[in-house]
């Protein structure tokens, strides 16, 4: 039975609530003070707390964090015109508020909704164990995403997964499928970004023989292939506008009509879409249909970039190094702690995909070495981890790198990296005294890479020292 705690110093209010709760079939306890409320809460488990803010021995808000931490829902009871209290309550996670004076009917709905929400929340919590597919990491950010996967898996609602390129959007889509009731049925992933406009429509919806040049035979589309299972539209932002319209119709009607076909065929699929684009922005620019966006974003999961999962880099690296070593038939390698530090210092614009590519390079570069060190990293990844001593900088431009705290605004990480790289190159040319071989030796980078970097920063390089110092 649902258990509700009423904390209010006004006996009439307590009586009113008790009548409502009794009528709704819930058990309840009443307290008139902060002290009594805290004592009751610590002795029993409550699903919902109806909390007055003005109590004889203190403010009800002081109890709020305890209730929220214990996962109980809280409805705040405020006096007439006390909007500030309601604002604060919401800030700390209260479900709703009711303003005095109120009628019985006015409190029934918030109580029903709060308890319904709690019930759904508990169903979601009971989902464990979750099949993680190949998702690696124990950071808070990734755990939040996994919780969302669990929530999405028990429903059939469309999910939009967003995140930078290489963050693992397809893995998360697969995880939703594998944890859903559709798991035994197909999971069909369509990379809209890899399909030219002329092929998207027939690939998705299929086509009849002779419906266009090259349609030599009747062909089922991927939507039909996904019948009963999950259809993943990767890079959904790349879907051409005319196809968006047809696809929206398919979603609404749950029927698919092949290109050149006259009849529709019913189809049952769950949609998981993914993109690294800002679809809201695209809607404003009329590049993406607003009605389709609402349809595909019944639930949303935003994946964090790797740079915000620093804690996970180590685990992903260990796992991937092991996997790659097995794949390439080489022995398992030890990894030095400073290698992890070097990885953590990089900003990973290509995220996990980029990390895997780098690890592949590292394994090749390590050869028969039994331990992986930072020296096995590609040079540009080592440069990013360098820390410059103030003594190195002698001109004004390098101050922006070293004395960040002196600036009013922190530069973007990209600007910071660019400056660091520029200053390194300037210092390198100076120390190498114009000798490119020596520069390659000091920096550990190849001549072509060195010239590439010099070109990137518009430095003329060796033999013309004027431009570099």
């Amino acid at each position, binding site marked *: 039975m649902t258990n509700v705690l009423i904390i209010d110093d006004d006996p009439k209010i307590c009586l009113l609530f008790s009548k409502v709760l009794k009528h709704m079939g819930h058990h309840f306890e009443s307290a008139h003070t902060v002290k009594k409320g805290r004592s009751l809460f610590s002795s029993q488990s409550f699903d919902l707390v109806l909390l007055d803010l003005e109590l004889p021995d203190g403010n009800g808000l002081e109890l709020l964090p305890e209730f929220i931490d214990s996962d109980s829902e809280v409805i705040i009871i405020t006096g007439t015109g006390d909007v500030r209290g309601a604002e604060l309550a919401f800030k700390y996670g209260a479900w709703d508020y009711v303003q005095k004076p109120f009628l019985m009917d006015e409190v029934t709905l918030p109580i029903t909704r709060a308890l319904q929400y709690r019930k759904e929340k508990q169903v979601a919590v009971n989902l464990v164990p979750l099949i993680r597919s190949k998702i690696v990491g124990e950071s808070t950010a990734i755990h939040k995403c996994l919780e969302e996967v669990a929530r999405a898996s028990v429903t059939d609602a469309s999910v939009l997964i967003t995140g930078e*390129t290489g963050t693992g959007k397809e893995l998360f889509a697969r995880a939703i499928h594998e944890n859903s009731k559709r798991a035994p049925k*197909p*999971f*069909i*992933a*369509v*990379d809209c*970004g*890899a*399909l*030219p406009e*002329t*092929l998207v429509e027939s*690939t998705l919806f299929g086509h009849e023989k002779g419906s266009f040049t*090259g349609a*030599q*035979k009747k*062909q089922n589309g991927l939507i039909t*292939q996904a019948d009963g299972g999950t259809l993943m539209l990767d890079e959904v932002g790349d879907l051409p506008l005319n196809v968006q319209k047809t696809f929206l119709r398919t979603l609404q009607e749950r029927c698919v009509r092949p290109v050149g076909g006259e009849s529709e065929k019913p189809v049952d699929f769950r949609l998981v879409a993914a993109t690294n684009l800002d679809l809201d922005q695209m809607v404003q620019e009329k590049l993406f249909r607003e009605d389709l966006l609402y349809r595909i974003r019944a639930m949303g999961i935003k994946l964090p970039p790797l740079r915000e999962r620093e804690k996970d880099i180590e685990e992903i690296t260990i796992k991937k190094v092991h*996997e*790659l070593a097995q*794949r*390439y*038939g080489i022995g398992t390698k030890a990894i030095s702690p400073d290698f992890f530090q070097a990885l953590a210092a990089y900003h990973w*614009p*290509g995220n996990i*995909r*980029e990390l*895997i*590519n780098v690890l*592949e*390079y590292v*394994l*090749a570069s390590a050869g028969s070495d039994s331990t992986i060190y930072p020296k096995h990293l590609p040079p540009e990844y080592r440069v990013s981890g360098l820390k410059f001593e103030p003594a190195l900088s002698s001109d004004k431009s390098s101050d922006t790198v070293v004395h960040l705290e002196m600036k009013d605004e922190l530069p973007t990480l990209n600007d910071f990296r660019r400056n660091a790289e520029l200053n390194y190159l300037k210092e390198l040319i100076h120390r190498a005294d114009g000798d490119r071989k020596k520069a390659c030796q000091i920096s550990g980078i190849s001549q072509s890479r060195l010239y590439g970097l010099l070109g*990137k920063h518009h430095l003329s390089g060796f033999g013309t020292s004027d431009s570099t110092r």
Partner: protein
Amino acid sequence: MKIILHSDAMEKRSIKLEKLIHEQLPGIEIKVSIEIEGLKKDLCKPLNGISVAVLMVSSIKNLEQLLELKAFFDNTKLILILSEKIKAAQTTGFQLNPCFISYLDSDLNDTLLVIKKIKERIYDLETQHT
């Protein structure tokens, strides 16, 4: 960009595709691998630089052999071209997670268009990251 082209017993078609790529998408390096073992060997090389794998499959056996190599295609865009006789096996083919499935009786222009799109996309991504 580098492509690996695998074709079991469909030499003529793979030669045609190779020729079309050379003619219409110059600058793409193509590695042809007829035998499954050769394909595995190529994929097992670290830093193989393969961005796209075009797999022309004419038998269920070959499809199953390719499924065993699934992990090797992790970071590779995969195009599957099935022969008419195993068209019904496309559901199995989806387990390879291809970005495009075509059929051997097509004129291969569709495959060419997909490769072109992937090439443009890879270029865009590289530009973004530098």
